[in-house]
């Protein structure tokens, strides 16, 4: 500690305040949300989480339709998005020649810069009609024996929201996975290839286990974006407070109900209930992050962590 230089002290002070500010802002938000949501917390308690009734004029509120809608759409988007995203990242790193890799990587990053309302409008005008007229009837013809697949195929609903979210989280997953996969040491690949492994075996044995934690981290970042996405989802999910029973059912998410109803609330309880949902959304995000950390920790125990973690 030679820290007598005033510039040094000033700099240390600045970075400390910057770091603390994040913590303070988060804490203040939790306090304020809890405070304004208190009438609803007091009235409905934890029952709010599993009650399905959302009836503003009768002042009866339950968040299950929104929690279910948020989790179902985000998790499905996460599964589809991770499979496609990691696949794309592997292709870019392991198979693509530079004249493909560079422009494709560039386009992936461009995809991340498109505002979410544009995705939403594309969902309304292109994806929705496609689901209703083409893919929906096809799925209903061949897969209606599966659970949660029943008609009619509407232009909006769970499936449309899942597809939009998948496309929206892809750039995050591809970009991070690609960086993580690139970071796998060359010597490790060469070693396994020298033992006579095929390229697929090399990926399976040498690359993926090494990149696991980073890929998980990428997926979690994608999930966080999917959970919080508001506008694009509100445009394509159909905004129905009934719990969905099919991939074609209209549903609702926590973020979109707040966006839709906050402007014209029915009464003060309605307002408090919407803020209560906001608080739950924050808690769910925290929980998802905690689970992600735990997973990453379990996976990487005894391993060298990669650049991202």
């Amino acid at each position, binding site marked *: 500690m030679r820290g007598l230089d005033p510039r040094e002290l000033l700099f240390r002070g600045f970075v400390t305040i910057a770091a603390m500010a994040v913590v303070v802002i988060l804490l203040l938000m939790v306090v304020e949300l809890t405070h304004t949501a208190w009438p609803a917390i007091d009235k409905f308690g934890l029952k709010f989480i599993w009650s399905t009734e959302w009836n503003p*004029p009768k002042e009866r509120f339950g968040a299950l339709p929104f929690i279910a809608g948020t989790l179902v759409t985000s998790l499905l988007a996460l599964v589809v998005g991770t499979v496609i995203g990691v696949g794309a990242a592997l292709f870019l790193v392991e198979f693509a020649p530079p004249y493909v890799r560079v422009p494709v990587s560039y386009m992936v990053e461009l995809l991340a810069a498109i505002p979410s309302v544009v995705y939403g409008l594309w969902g309304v005008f292109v994806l929705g009609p496609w689901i209703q007229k083409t893919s929906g009837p096809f799925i209903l013809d061949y897969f209606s024996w599966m659970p949660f697949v029943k008609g009619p195929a509407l232009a909006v609903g769970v499936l449309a929201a899942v597809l939009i979210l998948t496309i929206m989280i892809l750039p995050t997953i591809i970009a991070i996975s690609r960086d993580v996969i690139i970071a796998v040491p060359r010597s490790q690949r060469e070693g396994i290839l020298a033992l006579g492994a095929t390229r697929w075996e090399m990926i399976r044995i040498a690359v993926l286990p090494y990149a696991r934690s980073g890929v998980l981290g990428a997926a979690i970042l994608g999930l966080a974006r999917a959970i919080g996405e508001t506008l694009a989802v509100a445009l394509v999910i159909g*905004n129905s*407070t009934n719990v969905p029973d099919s991939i074609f059912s209209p549903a609702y998410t926590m973020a*979109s109900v707040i966006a839709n*109803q906050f*402007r014209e*609330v*029915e009464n003060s309880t309605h307002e408090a209930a919407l803020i209560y949902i906001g608080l739950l959304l924050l808690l769910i995000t925290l929980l998802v992050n905690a689970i992600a950390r735990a997973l990453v920790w379990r996976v990487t125990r005894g391993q060298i962590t990669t650049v991202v973690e």
Partner: protein
Amino acid sequence: MNDKQGTWKVVRRVALTAGVVALSAMAFVACSSSSSKDKTPTKSAATTPAAGATSAATKAATTPAAGGSSIPSNVGKADSAKLTGAGATFPTPLYTRWFSDYKASVASGVEVNYQSIGSGGGIKQITEKTVDFGASDAPMSDDEVSKAAGIQHVPTTLGAVVMTYNIDGVTTALKLDGDTIAKIYLGKITKWNDAAIAGQNAGVTLPSADIVVVHRSDGSGTTFVFTDYLSHVSAEWKAGPGTSKNPQWPVGLGGQGNEGVSQQVKQNKNSIGYVELVYTKQNNLPAAQIKNKSGDYVTPSTDSTSLAASGVTIPADYRTSIVDSATKGAYPISSFTYILLYKDQKDAAKAKALVDLLWWAIHDGQKTTTELGYAPLPKEVVAMVEKTLTTDIVSGGAPVLKP
């Protein structure tokens, strides 16, 4: 909202160049087309007192001071004040037009800043007295009125909610009664060829397809009027979802705003949704004829909407519902939209500017209503509002506007 405003600009330019000729021509066309579509015989329309009242109301709009008051409609020409208002989005195009017309042609010193933040926000802001006037589509509830002591509702124009639809093979206007609409929105009628719908639409081939029900996802005055109507015509609706800006919908999918609803209706075959009359006029959407209390199927129009407020008893505070009007030829899903102001005004100059502006709005301002798709106030309501403005709004103990 944006393309709406674009349309207004075009409409406005046309109107300005064509002037009075265009106005009277439009009024004439609107009158004649609706009376032929309404199935209301022209002869009886001319003889029933209610219809007489509307034609008088149309005339009232062109002559200042309909109720026989001696105050000219441009009484505020010497006023100078900056007024702020906030509230309902539904009348925004009309209010924007009014305020700019008023500044341009009557009182160059009166500037109005109106923020369309929604009825709920308007009520909140006038309650907290952060604006000079509020605006709301739904009248304030008793609870809200008790928090804003001395508030006065002033109806400015009328709007209607239109049932629009997209049914395979149906090209003529669909006919529906209130009970059927309630059952569709309750999920009790699920097929288009249900006997209840087919019975009212003889000669129309209805598909045996599921009805896709579309409603608003955002809290809205339009939803309030629609559910208010359903509560009036269906006991089951009243006991169930009830009258609300945000009811719990038993079935259907939600679209945001009129745009969202009409988009869902256009996209999903065999669907039905509800939007404002103004919006259907701009977008040429199909509109169902609704059976009113006197048994006629009425096409939604500015005339049939005005009729809904004609010949009904209106309380002094105007907090009333005019849905399911008993007047012959009245479109049943109609409502007032209000400006909210305090009876006892603190700032005398602002008070005078505001009341003078409202005075102009209920007289000359009514001319622009039909042009933009709103319905003018009937003559008897104009006379009532005249009385309210000249006696109830006071500043420093004396009426702001003296007859």
